[in-house]
C-alpha cells in the first residue's frame, strides 16, 4: 500500500533538536509532567524511540547558568529540552509559583542561551485566535509572500471597525475567545454559533463584546469536510459522512520546516458539519499518506549489523535511584510489620503462653508496631488481635502494612519502565490483600493466613527482582534499600528481644521474627540462649537475615556505583559501610551488649542518611513519608 514512512520525519526532528544545541553531542531530554499524565505512555515511548532521556522537573537542576540532569554520577548537562509541560509551569520561580513540574532557573538558562527548548515558552502565542487575524498581513510583512494555506481569518474585535462588522452580521458567525481557549463569560464553552444562542445569551454576548471586544474573535462558520465513517447502531451498520479535523505536525530542522507525512484525525460522531467542538464524543484515527511509488524501507530502530552492542545504559537519574531505593525500603518495612503481626497473633493463639503482663513479648511486639506508626498506641494484650488488624489494614496509621505498600506502589509508579510487569502486578496483589480487613468477626487463624499470603507475595517480588532484573545501578539501589531497611529492623528486633534482660521466651520470639528458628535448632541443642541468638541475628555472615549479611551486601552495592572522587578516595557512604561490615565481621557475640546493638542501629541509620545525601539529595524529590519522620 505504499504508505509513506514516518521515520525520516522523526530523524529530521531529532536532528533539528540536536542542531539547536550549543554542544555537538547534546543530551536531549523529554520533560514530562510525570506518571500521572494522560500521555505519559506516549512520552515514554517517544523518548525511547528517539533515544532521549525521559525526565521530570525534579530530575533537572539549574546551576552555573545551565540546566543539568541529576544522576548518581553527578550533574550531567541537559542541552536540549523537549517540553511536554505547559510553558506556564516551566519555572516556579519566574512563572507560576504553584508549579511542581518545572525547575527554578529554567527561564534564566534559556535567557542565557545555555539550554534550547522546544517549543520555547511563549510559542503558544501562535495558537491564539486573535493572532490568526493578523497572519496574512504578517506573512506579507515578514516573508514578503502570502500564506500558502488559505484560511478563514477571524476578525479580532479589539479593533473598532472589525468589532462593528462582527456585531452587524453576528447571527451568521461563530464567536470564540481571542486569547483563552474558553469563550469569556460562557463557562466551559470554547466557542458559540450565535444563531444557536438563546436570546438572553445573545444579549449577554453582545454586551460583553461591547465592553471588552478585545477578548473575542468572530469568524465565518466553517463547514468541515467529511469522511466516510462506519457506524453501528439502531440495529444496522452503515457508512455515513462525518465531519473531521486533521492535526498535522511540522518540525524545524537544519534544512527548514518538515511536515510529518501523516497525522492525527478526529472524527465527530455528529453529522453537523458546522460544529467545531470536537471535544465530546469523538473518535481518533491515524492518518496515512500514500505514495504513488514504492516506499523505501526506513526505520529508526536499528537492525542487522548496525546494532551496537550495549550492556550499560547511561547514568541512572537520581530520582529513579531514589524511587527504586525507597521501593525496596517500603517493601521491606511491610515485611517487618507482617512478621511482627504474625508473631503477635501467634502469641495470642498459644495456650501455653506464660501470662506475664509487663514487658512481655506481646507488649514488646506492640511497642515495635507503635514505634513504626503502624498502630496508634500499646493496648492490653487481650486486644492484640485488633491491634494486629489495624497494623495491617488501617490506612490512617501511616506506618501500617497497607500504608507502606501504597508508598511502595507510588515510588514504583514513576519508574515503571524500570520494573518488570510481573513486579508491578504483584505490588497490586499485595495491596489487594491488605485492603481486605477481616473485620470484627476475625479469628487469629484468619489474620495469620492473611499475613502469610502477603509475605508470600513479597517473597515473589524479591524472587522476580533477583532473577529477572539486570545487575545495573537500578538493581543496586533497589536491593540496597531492602538491605538497609532489613538491617535497621533486625537491630530493632534485637534491641527488644535480645537485650541484656532477655529470657528464653523473648529470644524465641526473635528467632521467629528473623525466620531462623529451624537453623537455630539444627545448630544448637539447647533452647534459645542469649549469645548464640545474638550471633545468629547480628553477626552470622551465612544467615541472609543477619545484620552482618546486610552490611556485606550494602558494601558490595556501593562498591559497584560510580564515584564522584577522582582521587580514588572512598566516598562517605562506602567508608561507613566498609567499617560497619568489618566491625560486624570481627565482633564477638559474647561481648555484645544492649548498648552496642543500639550503636550498630545508629551507624546503619547514618549510613542511610549518607546514601541519601550522596545519591539523591542534590535537592531532589517529593518528601517520602519515611524521610519526613526522620527515619533516614
Amino acid at each position, binding site marked *: 500500500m505504499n504508505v509513506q514512512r514516518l521515520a525520516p520525519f522523526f530523524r529530521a526532528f531529532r536532528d533539528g533538536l540536536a542542531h539547536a544545541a550549543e554542544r555537538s553531542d547534546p543530551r536531549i531530554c523529554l520533560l514530562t509532567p510525570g506518571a500521572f499524565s494522560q500521555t505519559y505512555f506516549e512520552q515514554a515511548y517517544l523518548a525511547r524511540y528517539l533515544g532521549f532521556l525521559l525526565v521530570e522537573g525534579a530530575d533537572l537542576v539549574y546551576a552555573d547558568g545551565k540546566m543539568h540532569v541529576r544522576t548518581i554520577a553527578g550533574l550531567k548537562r541537559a542541552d536540549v529540552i523537549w517540553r511536554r509541560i505547559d510553558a506556564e509551569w516551566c519555572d*516556579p520561580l519566574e512563572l507560576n*509559583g504553584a508549579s511542581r513540574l518545572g525547575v527554578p*532557573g529554567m527561564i*534564566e538558562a534559556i535567557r542565557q542561551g545555555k539550554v534550547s527548548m522546544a517549543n520555547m515558552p511563549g510559542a503558544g502565542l501562535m495558537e491564539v485566535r486573535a493572532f490568526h487575524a493578523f497572519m496574512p498581513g504578517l506573512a506579507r510583512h515578514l516573508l514578503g509572500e502570502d500564506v500558502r494555506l488559505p484560511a478563514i481569518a477571524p476578525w479580532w474585535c479589539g479593533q473598532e471597525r472589525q468589532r462593528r462588522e462582527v456585531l452587524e452580521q453576528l447571527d451568521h458567525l461563530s464567536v470564540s475567545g481571542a486569547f483563552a481557549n474558553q469563550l469569556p463569560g460562557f463557562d466551559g464553552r470554547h466557542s458559540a454559533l450565535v444563531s444557536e444562542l438563546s436570546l438572553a445569551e445573545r444579549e449577554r454576548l453582545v454586551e460583553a463584546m461591547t465592553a471588552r471586544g*478585545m*477578548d473575542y474573535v468572530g469568524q465565518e462558520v466553517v463547514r468541515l469536510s467529511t469522511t466516510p465513517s462506519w457506524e453501528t447502531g439502531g440495529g444496522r451498520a452503515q457508512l455515513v459522512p462525518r465531519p473531521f479535523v486533521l492535526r498535522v505536525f511540522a518540525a524545524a530542522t537544519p534544512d527548514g520546516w518538515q511536515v510529518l507525512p501523516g497525522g492525527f484525525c478526529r472524527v465527530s460522531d455528529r453529522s453537523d458539519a458546522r460544529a467545531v467542538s470536537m471535544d465530546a464524543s469523538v473518535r481518533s484515527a491515524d492518518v496515512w499518506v500514500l505514495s504513488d511509488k514504492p516506499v523505501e524501507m526506513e526505520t529508526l530502530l536499528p537492525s542487522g549489523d548496525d546494532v551496537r552492542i550495549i550492556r550499560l545504559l547511561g547514568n541512572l537519574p537520581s530520582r529513579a535511584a531514589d524511587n527504586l531505593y525507597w521501593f525496596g525500603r517500603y517493601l521491606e518495612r511491610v515485611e517487618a510489620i507482617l512478621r511482627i503481626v504474625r508473631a503477635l497473633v501467634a502469641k495470642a493463639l498459644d495456650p501455653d503462653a506464660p501470662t506475664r503482663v509487663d514487658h512481655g513479648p506481646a507488649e514488646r511486639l506492640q511497642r515495635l508496631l507503635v514505634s513504626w506508626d503502624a498502630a496508634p498506641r500499646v493496648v492490653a494484650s487481650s486486644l492484640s488481635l485488633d491491634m494486629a488488624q489495624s497494623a495491617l489494614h488501617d490506612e490512617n496509621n501511616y506506618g501500617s502494612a497497607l500504608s507502606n505498600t501504597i508508598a511502595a506502589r507510588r515510588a514504583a509508579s514513576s519508574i515503571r519502565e524500570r520494573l518488570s510487569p510481573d513486579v508491578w502486578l504483584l505490588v497490586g496483589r499485595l495491596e489487594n490483600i491488605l485492603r481486605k480487613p477481616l473485620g470484627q468477626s476475625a479469628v487469629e487463624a484468619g489474620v495469620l493466613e492473611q499475613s502469610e499470603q502477603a509475605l508470600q507475595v513479597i517473597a515473589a517480588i524479591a524472587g522476580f527482582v533477583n532473577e529477572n532484573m539486570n545487575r545495573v545501578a537500578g538493581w543496586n539501589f533497589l536491593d540496597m534499600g531492602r538491605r538497609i531497611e532489613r538491617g535497621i529492623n533486625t537491630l530493632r528486633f534485637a534491641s527488644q528481644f535480645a537485650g541484656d534482660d532477655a529470657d528464653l521466651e523473648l529470644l524465641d520470639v526473635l528467632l521467629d521474627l528473623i525466620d531462623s528458628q529451624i537453623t537455630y535448632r539444627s545448630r544448637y541443642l539447647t533452647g534459645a540462649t542469649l549469645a548464640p541468638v545474638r550471633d545468629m541475628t547480628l553477626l552470622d555472615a551465612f544467615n541472609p537475615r543477619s545484620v552482618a549479611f546486610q552490611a556485606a551486601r550494602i558494601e558490595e552495592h556501593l562498591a559497584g556505583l560510580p564515584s564522584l572522587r577522582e582521587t580514588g578516595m572512598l566516598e562517605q557512604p562506602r567508608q561507613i559501610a566498609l567499617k560497619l561490615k568489618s566491625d560486624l565481621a570481627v565482633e564477638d557475640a559474647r561481648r555484645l551488649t544492649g548498648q552496642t546493638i543500639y550503636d550498630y542501629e545508629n551507624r546503619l541509620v547514618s549510613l542511610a542518611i549518607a546514601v541519601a545525601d550522596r545519591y539523591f539529595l*542534590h*535537592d531532589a524529590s517529593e518528601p517520602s513519608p519515611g524521610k519526613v519522620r526522620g527515619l533516614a
Partner: protein
Amino acid sequence: MIYDVTHVTSYEYELPVASADFLLHLTPHEGNGQHVIETRIEIDPPALDMQARRDFFGNRTTVLKITRPHQALDIRTVSRIEVERPQVPAAALTRPWEAVARDALNAPSLGPQSPVHFLYASRLAYLSTPATQFARESFAPGRPILEAGIALMTRIRDEFRYVPGTTAISTPLAQVFEQRSGVCQDFAHLMIAGLRGLGLSAAYVSGYIRTIPPRGQPRLQGADASHAWVSLWCGAEFGWIGLDPTNALLIGDDHVEVAIGRDYSDVSPVKGVFIGSGRDSLSVSVDVAPVAA
C-alpha cells in the same frame, strides 16, 4: 519626605532545607515621584549566588540561591527613599472613561509602562462578573475617569471590611465578594478586576504605607505593613495614577512604591522554592520610619 524602610522576611523550617531558590521584588523602583537614596538586601545564611536583575516591567528584582543546609532564613531589605510625588490632577479634568479605555487599547507602545499590558485578565486579577458589575455602578457614561476611579475606591473602602487572616493569596474574588472582607491585596485585585472588566487598564502596585488609618478613626496611627494598591491609567496626558482602595486614598507621600505588575503574582515580594520535607513557618515585619529632614 524621607523614609527608612526595613522589611524582614523570616523562614523557619522544621527540618533542614538542602537548597532554596528565591526571586525577590524588594528593592523599590526609582522614579514616579520617588528617589532611592540607598538600598541593600542582606541574607542570612549568605547566598551562594545573588544577582540583581530587572523584570519586564522594569522592577528591580534579585535572584538568589542558597545551597547549604539551613533551618532558618532571614531576608532583610533596608532602604532609604525620598518621596515627593507630583500633584494629582483635579479629577474632573480627566477625560471620560470610555475614551481612556479606547486609548488604552489602541496605545501603540509595547514598552513596560504601556497600558496594553494591564488590560487583560491575569492570574489573580481575572475578569469576574460581580467585580465588573460592582465597578460599573461608579462608572456612569461619560464620567471623568479619575472621578469614577475615586468613587469606586471609596465604595470598596466603605463596603468591605479590612479583616486580616480571612483570606489568602489564593482566595477567589467571588469569595471576597461574598464575605465582604479581606486585606489590601484582595481589595486591589478586586478593584483591578472591576476596572479591567470595563475595558480599562489597571496595574497592581506593591509597596508600603507609613500608617493605615483604622476604620472609624480619623487619626492616622502607626501600623506599618507590606501594602498593595492600584494604579489606573488615566490617559496619555496624566498617565498612571495610584489609588489605595484599602484606605480610600490617592497615592501621595505616605506611600512608598516597590514594584508594579499585573497582579500580586508578578511582584510578590519574596517568591521561593525550597527543597525540604518538613513544615515551614513564615513571619514578616515591616518598619517605615520617617527620617527627620
